[in-house]
């Protein structure tokens, strides 16, 4: 991989108690499916991000298990019902064992 996968997250910094907020995430990654053949006819080995996890104050709130059919530079959006102030931890788990992480604070008032 030419560049280190970089996560990007769009999440509001503030929310009212009980407010439903939409969280949008992106990460740069080829998502090599393992089904593609190179010029020499050899199968390019699979290398994808296979799991996305969203935690809030250490508690898992949403997970996605991605298969090779997920597009390159995978996008994932979902919702969260704001209850208390704290911090999101978003993590992306690569087939090669790497973990890419983004942390975002949320103030609920």
């Amino acid at each position, binding site marked *: 991989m030419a560049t280190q996968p970089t996560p990007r997250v769009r999440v509001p910094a503030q929310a009212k108690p009980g407010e439903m907020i939409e969280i949008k995430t992106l990460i740069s990654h080829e998502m090599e499916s393992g089904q593609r053949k190179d010029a020499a006819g050899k199968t390019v080995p699979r290398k994808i991000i296979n799991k996305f996890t969203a935690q809030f104050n250490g508690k898992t709130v949403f997970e996605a298990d991605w298969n090779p059919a997920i597009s390159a530079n995978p996008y994932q*959006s979902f919702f969260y019902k704001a209850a208390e102030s704290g911090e999101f931890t978003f993590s992306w788990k690569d087939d090669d064992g790497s973990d890419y992480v983004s942390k975002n604070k949320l103030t609920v008032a």
Partner: protein
Amino acid sequence: MEKYMLISRRDFLQATAAASAITAASGYGPLGRAAAQQRLSQSDILRFDPLGTVTILHITDVHAQLMPLHFREPSVNLGVGDSKGLPPHITDAEFRKYFKIATGSADAFALTADDFVSLARNYGRMGGMDRIATLVGAVRAERGNDNVLLLDGGDTWQGSWTSLQTRAQDMVDVMSALKVDAMVGHWEFTYGADRVKEIADKAPFAFLAQNVRDNEWQEPVFDGRKMFERGGAKIAVIGQALPRTAVANPRWMFPKWEFGIREEDIQKQVDEARAEGASIVVLLSHNGFDVDQKLAGRVKGLDIILTAHTHDAMPGLIKVGNTVLVASGSHGKFLSRLDIEVKDKKISGIRFKLMPVFADAIAPDNAMSALVEKVRAPFAKDLARVVGKTDSFLYRRGNFNGTFDDLICDAMRSQRDADIALSPGFRWGGSLLPGDTITWEHVTNATAITYPNCYRNQMTGAQLKEVLEDVADNIFHPDPYFQGGGDMVRVGGMGYAIDIAKPIGSRISQLTHLKSGQPIEAGKTYTVAGWASINENTQGPPIWDVVAAHVSKSGTVKVEPNTDVKVTGA
């Protein structure tokens, strides 16, 4: 809402009553004195029994035609599924019968295809932005500027040499001078994302498109709707770009945008508009008629859908539930007027007329004439250059072929040494009468696009069939949401049979290599020329040079009637 007054048919009857009497009395005959006597005057065209306080004017699919022209409506316009046999999928005698139009009348000439050449010699050209300016001005004068909303359904910036050379600036200047209030887009996007954004940000009119999103974060790219106040009523206009733009046209020209129908988002727009106090909710749509007809039955609360894209012109409103659909034709041939009466923040009545823009009957607006001349001036010499002459009637519209497309296919096969030619089923481009000279303007009116390269390539018989199947499904899928608009790809040098009622993969059969008379073999390779490829970096000369070279070499072109496509299942 139940008291819509569909006066259009009665209007047509008024306009054609005299002629009907004459043709009935003299037995039969669309031509001659009867036709000549019923040429419409400017006041006939403008005559309207006003209603309420609000007027909406709709013009669409002008395809950059600044000047009057001939444009023949289709003689074959088949509908499938729920649209089968219903307007706009009826033509000629059936169309005239449905809308009570006399054979040979001005309206018959404007709206149907048969007898076009002889009627054209009597009724003359249609359209021209200076004539449209006169009609718009007259309605504004009658109703008051503050009571009239002028909406443009898109496909305005593309279709001429001048629009291509100025990257749409000619049309932007003209539509700005016409004081268009809002527009939507399709071919506009083929000038590329940056140019569209540049114009949309600067133009005095709103460029609305609720269904365009950036494909990174799914955020809207354009304003989805705008609220106008006219005649004391709040009117919400929601813009809907062609949902299939990224499939039908080169996606690489706007790589960060995605489209789609986004029905639920339209519903949200309607609900928000009502919450903001809209008395009238209009969808300014480039969906195509059949898609809009389906959509009207599924989205609640739309009062009016101003349809576009499929170039249908209908002298009456089509009603689906509480929604009325307007089809205002193309190429500047028509201007639609809707008068609307509002009571208790709701529509209590609508009157409609499809005004035919007969160029010989309408006095040009001087200011607009001057502007049109000014924007054309830098290209005037090129536009007027004669490249040849035609002995045949050249036209574009029809589901399977048009003689102008046959000419383009002939040009590609001879100029590019190809067995087979493929030409896209575009619905835009003017018609030429037998005996007309063919100028550079005529050639480019049928070819001016931003991806004009005429490629030459090898394709197998199997690939040819797959292309035809794919395009056919785009037109004849029974669910309009799976259609893309346009007509069937035009084929030169190869015949085929099509059963439009079959599913994808089994519509096309009997592929025949015409020169040898032999069946096209799935595994065999053929040399194919074509243009308007949606892939980046397509190589080959621009199609207008290919066509001009062919016409110029021929001197006078003659196109034989095309009998190479056998249609069943209609």
